[in-house]
């Protein structure tokens, strides 16, 4: 299946893109997504372990299975709210 992964903040700057397209086996989980993303966008490899993955605007653990209609985003450590 083909997935679009959205980037924000530091992830966007490192990837130099707002999003990337990945090809994964049908039913692949978040763990597989992380591996594929590191391979496809090496500039993200160092940051990715510190990021959460959001699936349909909800933080998702590594064992969550994905479908091609999911909205997927890389969430670097957040820093809203001032100090």
């Amino acid at each position, binding site marked *: 299946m083909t997935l679009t992964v*959205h980037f*924000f*903040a530091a992830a966007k700057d490192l990837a130099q893109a707002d999003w990337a397209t990945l090809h994964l086996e049908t039913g692949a989980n978040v763990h597989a997504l992380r591996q594929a993303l590191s391979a496809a966008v090496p500039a993200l490899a160092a940051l990715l372990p510190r990021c959460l993955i959001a699936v349909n*605007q909800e933080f998702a653990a590594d064992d969550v299975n994905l479908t091609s209609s999911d909205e997927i985003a890389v969430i670097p450590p*957040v*820093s*809203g*709210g001032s*100090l």
Partner: protein
Amino acid sequence: MTRLTRDVIDYQALTESVLQCHCGGVVLFLGTVRDLTGDHVTAYLTYDAYAPMAEKKLAEIEAEIRQKWAIGDIAIVHRLGWLEVREVSVAIAISTPHRKEAFAACQYAIERLKQIVPIWKKDYDAHGNEIWVSGSSQ
């Protein structure tokens, strides 16, 4: 009420919006842009968000607070875009019948916001050097 905005936050209107006859107090928290963090001098900031998810998470914080405390009303606004030093980046106003709940709920709201809401701050110094601030300070 929770929302994101690119405009200056009118925190008086926000506070008025939560005032209620049945409440004895309001606590308002304002996050403001600070110039100094250790030795680092901030000239200005920009805030970026994964907007639909940030709005969803802000609404979740409101729901959590309404479940944990008997509040009157709550309003949270976070600003996005370019902010100068001393400007208000976030405002949280909570009215409650009794004041202790207002302090506890407001402090909870800002802690949760810094944990779960996908908003990011980019810091610029006077030389134009930029850095994404990573994670919550204190």
